[in-house]
């Protein structure tokens, strides 16, 4: 208990003094996760809208695959990404392995199914009524889709927040595609794994505290957005 207390105290000091090692991992985690989430939002929200709005052959299978991909272990996505990006892989020529770009691609693949599925639910809950109303008022299909996104903005933002939470907290993709290189691809989660294995609990705990705070902030944001989305769907 004394050891835990001392580690926690040191962890607080590391955060308060903005320790470069800690800050570097926090920064890498944040910008790779933000980039992956932003890409997933750009692709996933329109895809979710399309799956919710249109009947097409294979729609049921698409939904089943999306649900399966949501439960895919991060380490498996890391493994598949590694196979694609390694020197002998189909995308090896781009030399992306062990770079932040590889981590962004991997996290994008990780959070895309979640973004599509949650966007699909958002579009289903109120999107049909909003779209029909827009169409009865003479809107084009594109304008009606824009109206649905605007009307469901809080629900779509919830999807994005949930995707960011998953991206920032994962370790498998970051470890396998980033390589945990100090100052370059070391994220909070990979640093925690490394520092713990070295017995450096203070650094690991400091990063754990930052990660937990971030998770708490994301969850508070999601709850607030869900409340607004519920209001908007009335």
């Amino acid at each position, binding site marked *: 208990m004394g050891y835990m207390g001392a580690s926690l105290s040191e962890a607080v000091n590391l955060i308060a003094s903005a320790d470069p090692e800690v800050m570097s991992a926090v920064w890498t985690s944040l910008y790779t996760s933000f980039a992956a989430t932003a890409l997933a939002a750009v692709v996933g929200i329109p895809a979710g809208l399309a799956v919710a709005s249109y009947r097409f052959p294979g729609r049921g299978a698409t939904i089943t695959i999306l649900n399966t991909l949501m439960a895919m272990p991060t380490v498996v996505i890391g493994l598949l990404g590694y196979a694609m990006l390694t020197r002998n892989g189909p995308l090896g020529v781009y030399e992306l392995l062990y770079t932040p770009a590889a981590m962004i691609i991997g996290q994008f693949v990780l959070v895309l199914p979640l973004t599509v599925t949650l966007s699909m639910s958002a579009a289903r809950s109120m999107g049909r009524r909003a779209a*029909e109303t827009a*169409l*009865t*008022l003479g809107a*084009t299909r594109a304008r009606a889709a824009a109206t649905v996104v605007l009307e469901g903005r809080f629900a779509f933002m919830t999807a994005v927040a949930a995707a960011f939470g998953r991206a920032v907290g994962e370790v498998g993709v970051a470890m396998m595609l980033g390589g945990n290189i100090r100052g370059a691809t070391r994220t909070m989660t990979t640093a925690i794994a490394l520092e713990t294995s070295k017995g450096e609990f203070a650094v690991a705990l400091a990063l754990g505290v930052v990660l937990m705070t971030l998770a708490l902030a994301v969850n508070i944001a999601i709850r607030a957005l869900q409340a607004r989305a519920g209001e908007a769907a009335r």
Partner: protein
Amino acid sequence: MTQTSPAFRLENFAAGYDGRAVVEIDFLDIPKGGRIALLGANGAGKTTLLRALNGFVKPIRGRVFFDGSPMDSVSAVNAARKRMTYISQTPFLFNCSARANVAYGLRARGVPAREAFERADALLERAGLSKLARRNARSLSGGEAQLTALVRALIINPEAILLDEPTGNVDAANTETIEALILDSSDARGAAVVFSTHNVEQARRLAASAIYIEHGSASIRPL
């Protein structure tokens, strides 16, 4: 609109869900400028018929014509929808001010924002809703929301107005205003009006004839 063709024509028409016909009509013309009530029990198919006229429900068989043109392709339905309007029993108001809701149809037609909002304010004033113009539409009462939805639909000067129980949950004062707006749209602007109601007195006040839907088949009779 061409002078010769009716606003709507239904030929050998059947509509329903999952391949099962809810309402069947051999032949029906709804004239331009005409007002027709839809009467029938709950679940008789009134909403299905209204949604078929608007293109949201695809007929199981037969055809729906709007102003002489068949609504049998996506582009034909889209073109027809730009000239008509449909208000559901519980209208969906966008999460913005009442005036922004009313201006929506004009903005969708490329009317500049300033002009669209001026026209929205003028029509809201005529409907006695000036005080609510800047309130979020989601905070309006049931009657106010129904009236706002009607004003929003009428601002685009539709050639046909489809209303699903327009005064279903509305108080007497708002019912009077809604009925006056419907009559004005039809008399002054020549819009065809098809509305469902359970209130036979209201049907008589607004229309001279009614489509009765009983046991899935429809017949038109004077009121």
